[in-house]
């Protein structure tokens, strides 16, 4: 139905035009495509600081040459895998505990919620105050200086893993509670009256029902941990460096010629994150296949 006063204006769909996505879409595309495009170009030698473009994989080869890339991959992936796994297990347990509404459930819910507004940097700082060899845990266990295990800055990266697991488990717990909120109790009762013991109900009903939520939160946590800088910087050790710290070092190096290597590390990190997201969405689709 054409508006005669404005013959070229389309009639308004009931919810308004689709144009309203643009204020959000344009900056997002500009920043993502621009940022990643430039990173990729620089890593491929297309945007040197001085001299002519020299397309090729030199930057990648150089950063790999010293073995730094390999060890960075091992450290970053290791931290991401372990902390995400811990976060999923602890977060699910917490989510179930909150949702079951037994004695103390609200305390668990409140405790998880308290960690929400804590920035990761602050979390790292306080985790350091807890786990350092002069930290609270060391004092509580009365260990003599030098005998406390090196959680902070040690080869196990334990403090880093602990901080990520700590924050991410709250995230998982909240998602689990939200996911179970509407239906969990009913399916649980339905299972009980069909003869399933509590353990059977957990394995055969609750966890499968939680699978999509866990896949999503697991993927998000993993990718975040992979690309996070401040926690690894504050609680980690100088060598080997995780990907984010390595990239930062190369980026801020006084030798500008190593910039493309920083971009190479950034590009590789992004590629791994993309692969993980793809795997996550495939798993998600499979878990939803029957629904």
């Amino acid at each position, binding site marked *: 139905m054409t508006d005669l006063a404005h013959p070229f204006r389309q009639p308004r769909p009931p919810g308004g035009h689709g144009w309203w996505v643009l204020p959000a879409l344009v900056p997002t595309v500009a920043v993502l495509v621009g940022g990643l495009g430039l990173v990729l170009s620089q890593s491929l030698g297309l945007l040197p600081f001085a001299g002519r473009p020299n397309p090729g994989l030199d930057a990648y080869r150089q950063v790999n040459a010293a073995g730094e890339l390999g060890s960075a991959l091992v450290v970053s992936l290791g931290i991401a895998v372990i902390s995400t796994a811990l976060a999923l297990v602890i977060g699910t347990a917490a989510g179930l505990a909150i949702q079951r509404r037994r004695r103390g459930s609200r305390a668990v819910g409140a405790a998880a919620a308290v960690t929400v507004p804590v920035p990761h940097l602050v979390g790292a700082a306080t985790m350091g105050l807890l786990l350092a060899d002069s930290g609270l845990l060391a004092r509580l266990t009365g260990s003599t200086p030098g005998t406390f295990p090196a959680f902070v800055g040690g080869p196990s990266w334990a403090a880093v893993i602990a901080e990520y697991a700590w924050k991410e488990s709250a995230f998982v717990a909240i998602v689990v509670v939200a996911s179970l909120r509407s239906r969990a109790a009913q*399916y649980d009762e*339905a299972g009980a*009256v*069909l003869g*399933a013991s509590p353990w059977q109900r957990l394995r*055969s009903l609750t966890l499968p029902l939680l*699978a999509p939520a866990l896949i999503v939160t697991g993927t998000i946590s993993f990718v975040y941990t992979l690309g996070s800088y401040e926690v690894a910087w504050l609680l980690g050790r100088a060598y080997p460096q995780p990907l984010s710290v390595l990239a930062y070092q190369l980026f801020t190096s006084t030798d500008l010629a190593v910039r493309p290597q920083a971009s190479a590390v950034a590009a590789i990190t992004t590629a791994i994150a993309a692969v993980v997201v793809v795997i996550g969405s495939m798993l998600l689709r499979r878990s939803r296949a*029957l629904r």
Partner: protein
Amino acid sequence: MMPYLELVGLRRQHSSNQPPAVNNLTLSASRGEVVALLGPSGSGKTTVLRLVAGLDEPEAGSVSVGGRDLRGVAPERRGIALMFQRPLLFPHLTVLDNIAFAPRMAGVSRRDARVKAARFLELVQLDDYGDRSVRSLSGGQEQRVALARALAAEPDVLLLDEPFSALDPSLRADMHQLLAEVRAVIEPTILMVTHDQTEATSVADSIALLVDGHLEQHDTPDRLYTQPASLVVSRFLGGVNEFPGVVSAGVHISDIGHLLVPDAADGGAVLVIRQEAVFLASPTDTRADAVGEVLSVESAGPRRTVTVRCDGIRVVAEVGPAQSARVGDSVGVLLPVSQRHVVPVPMSPAPVPATR
């Protein structure tokens, strides 16, 4: 017959500042019997089912099946299956695996459980739906699968919580038919909650009427209608004719006159008679128990509800097209003796509102 399912003195209070949801309920069902739990919403019917299933604990009273006291027994070990109001089919399992759930939990191998499930799938006439996802089912199909799933648990007692209330009337009739067919094969003992009188009457062997957590009467459908134990029962089932008065030597004396009520005990009593049992006759008919003027005629399809005023008392009759009358007509009202029923009430101080 020996009672198979026995509820004795059940009491459940949801919270301390509310009246009990179920109060001193004693009820029993024989093996293979279908008992309908009928009552208005909030009367505690669902609570009773949850107590029997073990999902809630009673404050007092006991539940036993086949002589075995189930106090303290977890729901999964009671041998009782409950079909909820919503089908609650597990979305991550196929139709067949849903039905096979209970056998699997009991330790049957996956293959054997599926074979068993297929039998029950056939019983509810959804033979080829085994591999489907539960999302693809219609409402009626979902309920059938839910029924098959509960049956596959081979429970001693099957509990149904308004399982068909969300379906439209023709589907509901199909499900009643299905239930009858299932009963012919398996003969389960069923306790079924419903708020629909018609459903209760057509499906159940006996009806237990629950009002405000209290069991008013447990009887066959016929006796519930024609011989209500109390005015609460009569009113819930839609009876409107109530004549308060006194019984003396087999005669009920009230404002409408002297009516013969053989076998009734002396004392204050309200005489009730179903409106469907009242006949209209000509005002000069000698058999008429009272004569009056037609106040109103309301149609409901082919039936009519005729309200007649006799000496200031209203009598309501529900008649078919053959006995129609018009407003203002003078008619005679017949209250057949066999259909009269007296409900004893104390003389005073709790007066029953007169039907004036």
